[in-house]
């Protein structure tokens, strides 16, 4: 199993989510982060003070997948997150030792397989 960590532009989040759902990757975790890379810094002014904003808003995705899904997932992200301008972000793939689903206690493959939605 692998844990895929992707840093993307906030404005591409909806497209990426959609691409992942199409690829049947529906379990994932998202957070707001700030990134620094090759983009030019923004300058802001507050009264007399000038400030350089070195960090840009980004979104971080964290997706645990079983081996057969790794390539599918990475490809879905790469395709849907790209704008072609500096700042599109990165994808990291990490090895995972164990995965547990808290609700059932299932482990590893079983834990990342989605369950049917049955909810009152």
């Amino acid at each position: 199993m692998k844990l895929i960590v992707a840093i993307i532009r906030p404005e591409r989040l909806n497209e990426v989510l959609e691409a992942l759902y199409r690829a049947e990757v529906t379990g994932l975790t998202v957070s707001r982060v700030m990134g620094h890379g090759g983009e030019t810094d923004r300058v802001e002014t507050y009264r007399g003070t000038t400030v350089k904003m070195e960090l840009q808003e980004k979104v971080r995705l964290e997706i645990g997948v079983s081996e057969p899904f790794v390539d599918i997932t990475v490809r879905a992200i790469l395709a849907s997150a790209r704008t072609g301008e500096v700042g599109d972000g990165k994808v990291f793939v990490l090895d995972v030792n164990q995965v547990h689903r808290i609700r059932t206690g299932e482990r590893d493959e079983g834990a990342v397989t989605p369950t049917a939605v049955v909810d009152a």
Partner: protein
Amino acid sequence: MTHPSLLLALQSAAPAVVPADTAWMLVSTALVLLMTPALAFFYGGLVRSKNSLNTMMMSFVALGAVGVVWALLAYSLAFSQGNDWLGGLGNALLAGVGTEAKGTIPHVLFMAYQGTFAIITAALISGAVVERMRFGPYLAFIALWTVLVYAPVAHWVWGGGWLMNRGVLDFAGGTVVHINAGVSALVAAMVLGVRKDYGRQAILPHNVPFVLLGAGLLWFGWFGFNGGSALAANELAAVAFTNTFLAPMATLVVWVLLDYFRTGRATAVGGATGIVIGLVAITPAAGFISPASALVLGALAAFPSYFAIVARSRTRLDDSLDVFAGHGIGGITGALLTGVFASKAWNAAGNDGLLAGNAGQLATQALGVAVSVVYAAAGTFVILKLLALVTSLRAVPRAEGLGLDVTQHGEEAYSSGEGSILVMPDAVPAGVTAPALAPQPAAR
């Protein structure tokens, strides 16, 4: 601001300043001025965080730009002696605006009071173009619009112009303020075009408490708007005030119920919107109808605007904060219902409406509506198209993506300061008063 009572006052033999009227109009002017910051919060809460300062500044800057234009020129065009179509230049540059009585209050105060109306009217339009219009062209637009659209319409309805002479009733600005702004907003939204994310992404209000704060302060200020339009601390002011108290209550109740029956849940944004629409609708009627009628008018006014908002959001018409559905349709509803509910029993200087047997008043009201719709639409279209010849009205898509706060104003509404590096000015006189400053090394 109801013309009949104003006229009466102006005709009365020896015009003199009445202290009690002055006291109330001082307060009313302050109350209406507060409505523009209130609008900044109502609008600012409804947009995304990255555009919130820009949206707020669109209201705040009207306090500067429109206010100065009003004092220098537009007041004179609207209210000084002129002809049926436009006032003269007698009061331009505030000439002849002194402490003499205008009605029963000092002339300077009358000028300031009317100025607060011009300011908020222009600011109202901004709701249709937020999140995409550049700040400079917006500033030019509201300054021109105040002179070319607001001042003439104000003259027609309140300044002794032709609609006033035809008997159009507009107590506090259903036509001059709300239809005028609502229609201009509609046209501006069409000229500017849709936001790049509109209809593609969910665009959510970033701060609903601010929307509620704006609605609360707007209501508070509106007591000066409508109650002050009696231009005196008299029974008429009390009626206009009470109607401004009752109508939005009815609108709010109906709105909450409509929300509940349509979606199963009564929203806070809906509640705030309902209050404002009740206020809009009662504005032209406030001094002409009974409090019981005000309750009915308020309840009725919820329907057209409610369904207009729902319908609008299904189109490609990006009147972003529904200024037309709120102020345009709300103003038209109010102007027409004034022709239905008006009653000389409540204001002898007004007129009877449909229910009191005078169907003609409804037709007169419709004339007022039609004229202001056409003129505001044409005027706004022309001004924007002319400006578009000189400069680009819209921010580029990349700027729209980053948000107008950063790109137009160079600042953010909510900063944590993380990752922001102080840029030292070259000319720092090292250690003027204190331990030497370790200069911030140029990062990277």
